């Protein structure tokens, strides 16, 4: 295996990156299992067992993804993207008959979770050797690629997941060389979309609303800090959990806000509040540090690789993890609106865990392969030299061959 070879070749920067990513992932997963146990202790269902099984399954997924060549995914990314869009659409139609986010009634998999990664792959595929994203017209296609699944996910309704998609787009456009002025404009437009949607919502019936009334209520609760709204209550309890934890916390499984069921959704969306209560500032900062490490190491992989698709995928995954983790943590701390978004690796939930492992697996895959690009070292879209990527597929650089499908 590549990992073994890397080990034999001696500690290199690449090795450290890969090991660091693995360490952060496993540590976060372990912490997640511990706090799922703490927050579901008084419930009869075997949450911890299920989470552990999913973690093992996730590791399996990670290993499988690592052994495959990620560029195979590149080839199929548009197909997967199309299939998943179709699935989302079918679910949306089926939703009118009582089925919603989950693919099967047995809560097996949420396609919207998978959509995030597929979007990363698709965008990376689309953007890897392109230059036209530097013009305003060239931005249209990637924006459309993001907007369509975003609206479908929003209609499920899953505000949290759909909000994860624009940051991915922005980050990947930025790395692939889009103009900063365009990106800033797009960001502004995106922000303006929210009041626009609210205006439209006034004139359409409930079932057609883009942003549902309860989502509006959440936004209000966040902006006005109104305790009488239910989400104000959630936030209040979450903040009390953090605050009463203090510097070092009340100890694992000793949090009163947790055990006395004051914190809502404490094993899924608000699990970070439980961490903050039981491990205090030290523990919560430690978890955040692990996240930061994971994100920065993913960016490091992007920096280290010279292959544009891999670089963009690593960028996308780093942004995805950062955005999702930050949104969840900020929500529990009252810095952001409350959305039903799990904390990657930590929150209870099979889909979320598997998707996160999948994403990290992709980055590891990229990080472990030495792709040698003959040409510009940095694949700078600004220089006009012809780029011929030559990849050493087996990392040692024995045979060199041009990318077949390109």
């Amino acid at each position: 295996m590549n990992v073994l070879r890397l080990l034999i070749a001696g500690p290199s920067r690449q090795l450290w990156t890969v090991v660091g990513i693995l360490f952060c992932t496993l540590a976060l997963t372990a912490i997640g299992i511990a706090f799922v146990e703490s927050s579901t202790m008084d419930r009869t269902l075997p949450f911890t067992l299920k989470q552990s099984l999913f973690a093992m399954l996730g590791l399996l997924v990670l290993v499988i993804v690592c052994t495959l060549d990620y560029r195979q995914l590149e080839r199929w990314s548009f197909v997967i993207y199309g299939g998943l869009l179709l699935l989302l659409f079918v679910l949306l139609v089926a939703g009118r008959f009582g089925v919603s986010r989950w693919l099967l009634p047995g809560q097996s998999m949420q396609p919207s979770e998978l959509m995030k990664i597929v979007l990363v792959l698709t965008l990376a595929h689309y953007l890897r050797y392109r230059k036209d994203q530097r013009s305003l017209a060239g931005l249209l296609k990637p924006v459309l690629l993001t907007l369509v699944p975003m609206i479908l996910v929003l209609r499920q309704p899953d505000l949290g997941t759909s909000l994860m998609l624009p940051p991915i787009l922005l980050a990947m456009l930025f790395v692939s060389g889009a103009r900063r002025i365009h990106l800033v404009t797009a960001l502004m437009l995106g922000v303006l979309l929210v009041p626009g949607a609210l205006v439209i919502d006034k004139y359409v019936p409930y079932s057609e609303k883009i942003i549902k009334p309860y989502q509006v209520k959440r936004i209000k609760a966040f902006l006005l800090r109104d305790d009488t709204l239910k989400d104000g209550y959630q936030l209040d309890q979450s903040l009390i959990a953090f605050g009463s934890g203090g510097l070092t916390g009340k100890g694992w499984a000793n949090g009163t806000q947790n055990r006395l069921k004051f914190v809502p959704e404490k094993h899924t969306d608000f699990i970070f509040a439980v961490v903050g209560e039981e491990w205090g500032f030290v523990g919560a900062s430690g978890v955040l540090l692990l996240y930061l490490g994971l994100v920065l190491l993913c960016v490091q992989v992007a920096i280290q690789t010279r292959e544009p698709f891999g670089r963009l995928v690593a960028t996308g995954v780093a942004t995805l993890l950062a955005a999702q983790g930050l949104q969840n943590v900020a929500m529990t701390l009252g810095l952001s609106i409350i959305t039903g978004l799990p904390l990657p690796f930590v929150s209870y939930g099979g889909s979320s865990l598997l998707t996160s492992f999948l994403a990290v697996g992709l980055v590891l895959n990229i990080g472990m392969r030495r792709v040698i690009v003959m040409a510009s070292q940095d694949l700078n879209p600004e220089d006009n030299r012809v780029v011929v990527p030559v990849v050493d597929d087996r990392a040692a650089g024995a045979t060199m061959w041009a990318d077949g499908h390109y």
Partner: protein
Amino acid sequence: MTPRTRLRILALVLAIPFGVVVLRLAQSQILDADEYRAQSLRRRGQVHQVAPTRGRILDRHGRALAVRKSTHDLVFRVDELHRREFYFAQLQMTYARDLCNAPPGEPHPTDGVCTCRTLEEWLFRNTGPVTDVESRLRRNRGLDEEWTFPFDISSADYRRIPSGLRNSVKANGRVGEHQGNGDDVYHTLHFRVEHLLAMELTLLRLARLTETPYEQLRQRVSKAVADVHAGKNSYERHHRRRQERPLIRDLSQDIVTKILYFPEKYPGIYVRARHYRDYPFGEVAEIVTGYLIRLPDVEEEKLKREGLLLQASRPEDLAEYYDSFAERRIRCRVSNGEIGAHGIEASYDNALRGLYGLRIDVRDAMNQVNRLGDGALEPIPAVPGRPVRTTLDVGLQESIYNELESQCRSLGNGLAASVVVMDLGERNASGVPGSILALCAYPGIDPNRVREPGYFRSLTEDPYLDKARPQFKRPYQAVISPGSIFKLMVALAALEDGIEYLEGDRVRSHRLDPREEFPCRKVFDERNPHSFRCTSSSAHGEVDGTLDLRQALKHSCNTYFYYLGRDRVRTRELAHWASLFGLGRPVKIDLDLPVSRQTRTTAGLLNRGDLTRREMLTYVIGHGHVGVSPMQVLRMVAGIALDGRVPWPFLVEPREPEIVTLREPGNLAVIRDGMRRAFEEPGGTAYKEEYGLDAFSAGAKTGTAQITRVGLEYNAWVVGYAPAENPSIAWVVSIEKTPHLGGTATAPITEKILKYFAERQPKRFGRSGRGSTVFESPGSGSEDVESGEGGITPARFREDG
């Protein structure tokens, strides 16, 4: 910009929010941690005040006058006992539009004309009387009858039924489905008869078990249901349904056991233990013990405003509340919502009440009590109230009360009466004379019944009690003409001061010599032959037709005292001496008001100004311008018996007597001699032969105050002390509105008192008796008082609170 640079910028952009989040974490977890910790404690901690046990009230031998007892009550909850009520109310509102009189189990005719207006009506039209259903159920257990409700519910409607109702229906019956016209599915509701009539069947069972009328129980439930429906909104109605309401009170142990043994037979019925204050001697000692009343709402509001009330609450700052609880519980004036209304219960409420304890329940978000807690706040135990030991001798009290009852009510000997017996001895526990041995008033209130609704109304409905006014605390609140008892003070004033007059240039005092004799005539003043008269036309059988002071006191001769009133006494001096001996001044007794705030009981009436001659003549025989309470008279006679030391009557807390200094030390001995003669010599107004107490030595004075001129109604008095030498008890008996004269009316009661002591201490109360006290210190003679109880005894009392 190369992609690597862009990636580095991206890394920076992604890292910055992490920094912000960590700062926010630090703010809430380090800077604001204390506030959040307090909030967390407040949300999960609920404060429960633990009510203390009220202290006992004891008599001087340790017999209990007031104790705590417990009993069992039955309570019910409407939502569990009377399930039908909830879904009938719901169904009635929405679906019961076309009721009909179809028999159960058959498809209802859609075109039938319905005569039932409510579901209840419909139900009982179909079932018949409940007793029939019950007997049918008893005959074949598991009656499989089902009642089908007479209306179909479309599937759309069915989905709109509130889930509570749906679950309730499913739990007590079943929901059937049938195909309607076309594709529509209709739902029908089926109930088993046992479930529909569960409330009635339960009440029938209870009625049989407890021998309570079924209708009465049914009425209570109906009342509760009416109360539920009076709720303003569904939230309030929901809570009223869950409220526990009393059904039957005071159940015996075996019935409680039966109910607890088969809880499934009595759904929604719960047994609750209840503690209450019991007064074993009831109305006999009510005037001493007083009773507890539930605090009126107005008072409660007032106390709440002043912070003198403790209640279950969720205080804003739990830790602060916990810290200040020690002070709060001392300030608290009420425990269990009850407060002493009269007597010792009121005046020693502070000591009896005890101090509240505190328990903090940890509650989770669903308001369920949870064992998990940080244990930082330990419970504070309640401090039980201290027992209060009075100086009362309840045996004496009881025998006097029973005698009064037979005299006043059964024999019609008087309307109302009061008797007070005082211990003059100094070898008792406190070493202070004045402790009260018996304090009786007839009629009394039954303190065990005052909490019954309508008890006080029932007092006014009884024609006798309505007149006699049992709420009136006669011994220290009544103001009655003393009659001849006042002559004791007239004699003293005449002996001590007399009248000063000028002889030439010298002021001379015309004092009474006890040996000085005045003639006794039937009519004192020939010009007013009907006004000033004596009881005897022959100078009470004394030789020469004249009497000295001793004889006058013995016979209670009016004429003699008319002479004194005319020639030897003036109002000012008389009032001076009377008030020195306690008449016309408030008697401070430790009853009726908290000791710290003792003010005055009725002061009586004592004219101190100038009177006309005619007024003066009525004054000296204790009529007109003088009114006294029995307690004042008792002080007076005790002062005479103790040779000028006028004791304060007390039940718990001793007070040093007042000392009256006389000009002539022997004057009181003369009066005592007169009183002794009245009791011991034949012809005396209180001659002992009448009491069958030959070998008894005492001094007494009777009094008869005429109330009306025509109808023969008197206030009869007797005061006395015993033994004649070194007296150890003093007593006063006052009977209001009796047809008999003083001596006759009060004789049976005096007999009871004296015999009570004579039986217990024959030597001391005989002629040769030299005793100076009635009882040893209470501690030595008591049977059941633990010495370490820390109770309030006369010697050890300290005011607290």
